[in-house]
């Protein structure tokens, strides 16, 4: 099935969670803000959010330094 992530179409396995999707991009989920279909996802929902076909995902990733 397909979702859109930051404007790009991605093929994913059914059952993929937000947290596993972020980890597959080699990112630490704690450093990523996620919006799914226009809603900001709470951090404690990252493990339980399972994608549906056609979800539109926006990820904002942060790196350290200030």
């Amino acid at each position, binding site marked *: 099935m397909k979702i859109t992530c930051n404007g790009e179409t991605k093929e994913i396995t059914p059952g993929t969670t937000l947290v596993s999707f972020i980890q597959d991009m080699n990112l*630490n989920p*704690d*450093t990523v803000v996620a919006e799914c279909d226009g809603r*900001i996802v709470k*951090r404690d929902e990252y493990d339980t959010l399972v994608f549906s076909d056609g979800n539109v995902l926006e990820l*904002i990733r942060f*790196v*350290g*330094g*200030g």
Partner: protein
Amino acid sequence: MIKVNEQTIPYQERITIRNLIDTCKPGADLFIVNGFPVSPDTLLADGDICCLIRRGETPTAEEMESLLMARHTPGVHEVVRKATVGIMGLGGLGTVVAGALARIGLGKLILADFDVVEPSNLNRQHYFISQIGMRKTVALKENLLQVNPYIDIEAVDGRLTEESIPVVFKGVDVLAECFDDPVMKAAALRAVLTNMPAIGYVGASGLAGYGDNNSIRTQKIDHDVYIIGDGTSAAGPGHGLMAPRVGIAAHHQANQILRILLGKD
């Protein structure tokens, strides 16, 4: 017309600096005309810009107001003077953002940090040797009041969390995310997008090292919500945080805060 300490007065023939001292600045002992120091007997010409100074004196609140208003125009000054900005993290970004906002006379700053000044901070953070070991909130407040003693500063000493951010910064016009830790950067953005929809927000990500100046960008991600940086330059071994590039990002943040306040989104 002659401009004296940002006030305009009518020009008269054969007028000298000495003629202005009693009315414009009693006790003045340093005189600048058109950018150069002069003697008090210097004859003035129509259109000259004069600055009469009493050395070591702190300008009054009214003097500071009129200086800032003359520099920034009354409309801009009025907005800046009434604004409240929160700054989360008082390191290389936060000290520089706060410094820029204090200099333009921003009404109220809420400064939050849990840390103390360490020697390794001095390569980019606006503290001084004499402040090593001080709480950052206390040290920065002290420094900012040297720049403008008339701004209101609230210090919040302690660790912020995703839950506490909307409480601590309730009522701010704009919130600046100046954390070092990327986990807190993400938590802060999530807190604001979820619980503080009406405020401006300016965060930062990707500013370590000495990479290209122009790769530091201001990116709009929502209405009045911006992230500044190159997005990828993380701080790490061999890729440290340094004053020049952190300063570029910090001044992007400060200018974006000003633009949000002035409705230039």
